[in-house]
């Protein structure tokens, strides 16, 4: 447990740094799609929900897990879908002038 905590802290710390470094450089043009994308990625929580519902340990856990899957999945689908829709709209000029 303790070891888990520590390694998890390493991962969290490094991931946070990566996030700050990378996202600081996202073009302001794309801040709206960025929101919906990170949103979809965040819905990876669905994996936890799947295990919970699938392991079927108690009725409570199964029920909560199932609802959780529904919530997360709708984020995954909706999030990626709308992000791609927005990004499709961004086009450069046929002959980009400076």
């Amino acid at each position, binding site marked *: 447990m303790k070891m888990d*905590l520590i390694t998890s802290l390493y*991962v*969290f710390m490094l*991931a*946070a740094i990566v*996030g*700050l470094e*990378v996202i600081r450089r*996202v073009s*302001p*043009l794309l*801040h*709206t*799609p*960025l*929101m919906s*994308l*990170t*949103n*979809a*990625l*965040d*819905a*990876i*929580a*669905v*994996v936890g*929900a*799947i*295990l*919970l*519902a*699938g*392991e*079927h340990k*108690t009725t409570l*856990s199964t029920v*909560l*897990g*199932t*609802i*959780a899957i*529904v*919530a*997360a*999945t*709708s*984020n995954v*689908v*909706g*999030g*990626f879908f*709308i992000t*791609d829709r*927005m*990004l499709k*709209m961004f*086009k450069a*000029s046929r002959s*980009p002038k400076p």
Partner: protein
Amino acid sequence: MTPFPIDSIIELTYLIATALFVMSLKWMSSPTTARHGVWAGELGMLLAIVGTLLNRSIVDYKWVAIALVLGTIIGVPLGKVQMTAVPQRTALSHAFGACCVTLVGTAEFYLRAPAVPKFMMSVLSMEVILGSLTFTGSLMAAGKLQEILPQRPILFKGQNIVNLGMLLVAIGVAVFLVLHPDHTYLFPALLAIPLLFGVMMIIPIGGADMPTVISLLNAYAGLSASAMGFVLDSKLLIVAGALDGASGLILSVNMSKAMNRSFSNVLFGGFGQEQTVAKGGKETRPVRSASPEEAAEILAVASKVVIVPGYGMAVAQAQHKVRELYDNLTKRGIDVKFAIHPVAGRMPGHMNVLLAEADIPYDKLLDMDEINGEFPQTDVALIIGANDVTNPAARTDTTSPIFGMPILDVDKAHTVMVIKRSMAAGFAGIDNPLYYLDKTLMLFGDAKGFVGSIVRELSGSGNHG
């Protein structure tokens, strides 16, 4: 030589998914690669889900399958909403995400209780507290943006004390549970109090401040997901949560910077209310106004035009008319650019998305910093439904509530034309000195309608000439 065990395969899919998620965000750095970003994200998600389904500890797929299908059915319409509805959609999906995290956290607690190790209990509490307050908070935000709930902030005395108090109680309970996890009956309080807090937190915040709030909630959602990752010891989840949290943090910081306001001001300021109270004695100075014909003539003879879109363009759904105007002017060999203020509209990147939707090439959409240098050489600055982001008071008037907010220097252009319906104030609820300059022409009317008639005039005169 034992074959590669299934568990390591699963772990590997998670590792790859993590890498793909990071790449996904790296590719968002430019519009040319952004779509790869989405694909990378989708691929990573797919890998992770498939990997999870392979997990041998799953005994019953029935509910999982049903839930996945249901989620997809709900997700599709959420992916199809109007561009103008994106803010509330985002808020809503934060609510969903937080909901998922909270439910899993709750289940995990009752599976482990009463023998929950200290560390486990502390991250668990963090997960459910953040999760549940994000859940109700986001729902409230969505409601305000959808205008189901009253837009204006509701303030009562001692509000902040009450809210703070609630939060402290919740944390207190959490600490107690960490020390005495056997008192399981206390756990529901870790859900109930934050749920209430989420509501109370949003009540005093004006509807127009919701975008900033949403980004903050975005950060919370990310953190709670990370906490869940700690609980389930899932590195993938920790990383995804951290990335989400970072993006929420950066966006909210950007916004408050661009509005020159502190978080606390956004959260406790009840800013939106000022919209109603007009600053000081209402201005009565004369302004010059003009008709579509005159506006068209002025534009026709210009050689460099900068269009400044704002919230009004979004409300009026005028972006397609604006596109027609852009086409007409560029056909005449006029150099047309768009000046995008970081907080123009009601969410980060709002204007960019709308104009992109109307097929305006994104290399014509210039950042405040890029364009501000060009205004002195600009013949006409055409402001369409923007107000605060062009308010020179932010530069000069130290008493102005938006003093110090970086603005677009439209007043440096030779001629300024402002399309809005009235002399009414914008989001900040303050008067705009720009409108009283001699170089300024007010074009009163709905953005969509007025731009439309300008275009008609231009194409008309185009035929004569």
